[in-house]
């Protein structure tokens, strides 16, 4: 406490020497000038004295024939006068503090953890709709409301935790790991579903598990044709239809169809050749805007810019809406080249492999193929005539209407779906 008072009022360490230091000390006591930490150094004595006391010393020094000089100054009054000489420094320091205080009122970063099926973008868009975005004020965020609305609006989210860490909004979620309950599946049980051809072709394989097959092996079908009907008729004794029993059709069906693909590749091509000349520049900006800081202008005809953007952050979670980074501008020239025969062969092989792998990805089987390559002076053309086989069916609600007069009392529908081939 005493130290604080001394610091605020200011004090100096002085060195006193001369004829009679003891007399000087006695006079200080008599004049109520407080001195402390008096240390004798042999030839002279040092002591601390308040600023006010120091200015009252002059007559005492004269009387006792001693001399005094200031060794060190302590306290707020000296600090303040020092700071007055450094106005810009003080203003900068104060400005910096104000800047940090203002900036820490906002959210500058949103981090989402624990999402697997919901993508970052989906959740960020959702937050945006709720008015939660980077650069919003922290106090306008209702954490409890956000937590509960996340759980309400997404069925897969079973647990949420929203935290504010510094200027970062941290959203942790847990998704339901159990497969979601499909409501459509339930509905499908009560109404019939047909299997239709999703493209034109010839039926090359058909095994029906439920439903009534409408197409036989070898039949040519058009897109949209019903292959298996989900309406199983229940007959009266006179072979008229009494009513329909609706089932979800299930069958393995494969359709064969011809397909031709042609790929053209030029022998001439342009290639980027980097000249080795490059420039570095510094980038500064916000989330959406960028300013490049560089010396001079870019006089390259063609150039690539590559770089990295980083967000300014203090400590772990205190992000600021300022981005920085370094960019490299590389000059290149477009050079015309000719592929050699071997290169063209390689390219064509790659193209063919690409075609095969895309077909395989779709689950399409190649039954027959006839590949030819036509060579020109300027380009090569790959022609592929293929016979493909694919399980091209789609499940649609049945178009068959229930029979009007059909009463429900039919006993258990023991009629089974017919199976062909």
């Amino acid at each position, binding site marked *: 406490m005493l130290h604080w008072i001394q610091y605020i009022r200011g004090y100096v360490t002085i060195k006193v020497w001369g004829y009679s*230091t003891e007399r000087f000390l006695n006079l200080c*006591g008599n004049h*109520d000038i*407080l001195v*402390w*930490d*008096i240390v*004798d150094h*042999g030839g002279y*004595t040092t002591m601390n004295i308040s600023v006010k006391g120091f200015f009252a010393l002059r007559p005492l020094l004269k009387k006792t024939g001693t001399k005094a000089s200031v060794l060190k100054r302590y306290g707020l009054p000296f600090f303040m006068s020092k700071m007055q000489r450094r106005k810009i420094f003080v203003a900068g320091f104060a400005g910096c503090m104000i800047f940090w205080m203002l900036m820490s009122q906002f959210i500058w970063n949103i981090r989402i953890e624990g999402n697997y099926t919901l993508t970052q973008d989906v959740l960020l868009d959702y937050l945006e709709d709720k008015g939660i975005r980077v650069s919003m004020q922290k106090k306008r965020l209702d954490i409890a409301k956000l937590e509960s609305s996340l759980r309400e609006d997404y069925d897969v989210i079973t647990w949420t935790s929203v935290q504010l860490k510094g200027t970062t909004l941290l959203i942790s979620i847990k998704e339901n790991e159990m497969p979601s309950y499909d409501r459509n599946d339930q509905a499908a049980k009560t109404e019939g579903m047909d299997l239709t051809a999703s493209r034109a072709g010839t039926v090359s394989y058909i095994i029906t598990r439920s439903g009534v097959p409408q197409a036989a092996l070898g039949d040519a079908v058009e897109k949209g044709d019903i292959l298996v009907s989900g309406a199983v008729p229940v007959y009266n004794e006179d072979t008229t239809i009494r009513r329909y029993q609706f089932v979800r059709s299930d069958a393995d069906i494969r359709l064969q169809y011809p397909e031709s693909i042609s790929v053209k590749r030029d022998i001439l091509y342009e290639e980027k050749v980097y000249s080795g000349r490059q420039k570095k520049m510094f980038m500064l900006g916000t989330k959406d805007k960028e300013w490049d800081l560089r010396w001079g202008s870019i006089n390259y005809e063609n150039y690539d810019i590559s770089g990295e953007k980083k967000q300014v952050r203090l400590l772990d979670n205190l992000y600021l809406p300022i981005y920085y980074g370094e960019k490299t501008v590389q000059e290149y020239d477009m050079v015309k080249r000719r592929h050699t025969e071997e290169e063209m062969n390689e390219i064509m092989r790659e193209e063919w492999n690409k075609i095969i792998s895309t077909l395989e990805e779709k689950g399409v089987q190649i039954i027959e193929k006839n590949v030819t390559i036509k060579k020109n002076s300027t380009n090569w053309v790959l022609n592929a005539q293929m016979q493909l086989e694919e399980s091209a069916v789609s499940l649609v609600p049945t178009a068959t209407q229930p029979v009007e007069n059909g009463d429900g009392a039919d006993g258990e529908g023991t009629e089974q779906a017919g199976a062909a081939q």
Partner: protein
Amino acid sequence: MESLKLPKDTMLGASIVTITGDREAFIENYKGIIEYTTESIVLQGKNRRICFEGKRLSIDYYTNEDMKISGSIEAVRYV
């Protein structure tokens, strides 16, 4: 005088010296400083002088009424 039970220091002007271990001495009711070096501090009481002897003696603070001495005190003598 005894029967009044008045404090002796105010009545007689006697000095009170409180010594804590051999490191600190606290003196009340003294008149002035006669001598001050690191080896000895001599104070003027009402009738006699009080002499502190030791090593590395320094005055922590003093006012008109009291003072505090610190250092390694070896002897206190009344002269």
